[in-house]
């Protein structure tokens, strides 16, 4: 009898604890929800005199951590620095950029929680994403492409449209949709990031990686046994993402982007980062003025 009572008590206590945790969770979610409603990104930037950017840490050419400095380096990071300066000029303030590492699944949440002000992390502009975040004008022309071993004999994604083939993608990228459209029969496996996908490809866990051409070129630069084949599947440019409903910040960013494109800063950065990629025609990327 005594034992049964004890067991019942334990069960009730556990249930109560679960309920409590649930309530706590919903409360936190609510708070986060309210937070985002009341925060204006531009106001926050003006007040703190800083712009917090979310950047990649694992993407060569765009945002890759330099193991010596511990900081991300790449086109995204340099453009974010230039934009910070330019926006500062427009507002008549001295703004400093700061960088926070993000990955595919954390970037939107961090924006919503206002841990960061903008995401500059090889983020493709899509309709679904535009429902939850605000995008600037496109800042980089990109599109999905296919990376395979040189001796694999695969010429295009059609060669992989078979249930026995596995296509590797990085979590939270647009590649999943591309594969579904172009090779609906192939198996899709999502890895944590591009580096893991590359390792898995090398280990034979899949036959190809599908992701943006620009990122694949970065992988090829380090892995000469692999090549990009089949051309671009759909034009899908990158944009800078801000929290939803931030017209002020988006306007400043677009204006700054335009100035940087006009004064040649943009093309200088393109040259700095992409002239090292073999077989890439820089004029495709540069802005013609």
């Amino acid at each position: 009898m005594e034992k049964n009572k004890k067991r019942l008590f334990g069960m009730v206590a556990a249930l109560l604890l679960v309920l409590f945790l649930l309530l706590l969770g919903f409360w936190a979610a609510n708070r986060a929800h309210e937070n985002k409603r009341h925060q204006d990104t531009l106001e926050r930037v003006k007040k703190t005199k800083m712009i917090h950017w979310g950047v990649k840490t694992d993407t060569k050419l765009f945002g890759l951590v330099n193991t010596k400095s511990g900081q991300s380096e790449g086109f995204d990071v340099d453009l974010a620095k230039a934009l910070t300066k330019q926006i500062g000029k427009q507002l008549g303030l001295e703004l400093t950029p700061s960088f926070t590492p993000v990955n595919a699944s954390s970037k939107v949440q961090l924006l919503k929680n206002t841990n960061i002000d903008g995401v500059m992390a090889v983020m493709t502009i899509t309709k679904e994403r535009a429902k939850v975040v605000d995008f600037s004008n496109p800042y980089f022309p990109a599109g999905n492409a296919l990376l395979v071993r040189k001796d694999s004999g695969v010429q295009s994604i059609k060669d992989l449209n078979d249930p026995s083939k596995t296509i590797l993608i990085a979590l939270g990228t647009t590649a999943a949709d591309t594969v579904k459209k172009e090779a609906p029969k192939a198996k899709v496996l999502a890895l944590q990031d591009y580096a893991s996908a590359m390792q898995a490809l090398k280990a034979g866990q899949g036959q190809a990686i599908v992701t943006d051409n620009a990122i694949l070129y970065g992988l090829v630069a380090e892995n000469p046994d692999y090549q990009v084949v089949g051309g671009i599947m759909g034009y899908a440019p990158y944009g800078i993402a801000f929290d939803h409903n931030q017209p002020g910040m988006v306007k400043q960013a677009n204006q700054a982007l335009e100035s940087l494109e006009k004064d040649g800063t943009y093309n200088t950065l393109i040259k700095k980062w992409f002239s090292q990629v073999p077989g890439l025609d820089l004029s495709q990327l540069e802005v013609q003025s």
Partner: protein
Amino acid sequence: MTLFNHYSALFFSGFGYTILASLIALVASLILGTFFALLQLSKKRFLAMLGNAYVQFLRNVPLLIITLFFYLAVAKVIKMTGFVSGTVALSLYTSAFIAESVRAGILAIDHGQMEGALANGLSYGQAMSRVVLPQAFKVALPSLGNQLINLVKNSSILAFVGGLDLMYQGNLVAASSFDTFTSYLVVGLFYLVLTLPLSYVMQYLEEHLQESR
């Protein structure tokens, strides 16, 4: 709730893989763990060293590294998917901890039990499996329960190697719904659905077996 309805197929398929991986790893690690506990206690110096090396090595390396070793290195020689490499790594890793628990259980049993069994004409193997081990498991039960619950939670390692488990699906849902918080909240609840009953079963066994002693 809408998020759950929308992605319930993903969550449930992930839940299925998590249960499958946990069950396989549970059985495998119990068998392996007991085997290596016996090796560790062997009178033969070499065997004891072998058992000890196995336990110390697997227990002191992060699970993620063992998993990646199978997924990236071993898979080059023996074809295995993320699910298989994750489950194998999980079994080996947990077996090291279980070996320690079982060894402690055996050591806690009075020497007289073994001597008595041997004196009554049982072989060493019989004495171990019929007399000492059943008692040892009773003693080790609380810490075994700990290991099993850890095993279920550690199965989330499969997500790192595309193992299709609950955490993997949770990552996918988080990435495509942009609602990271709710996605992982649901994932957490699913794990609770697995681990809470497991805790109660262990508790029940503990009490039940105590009575029969």
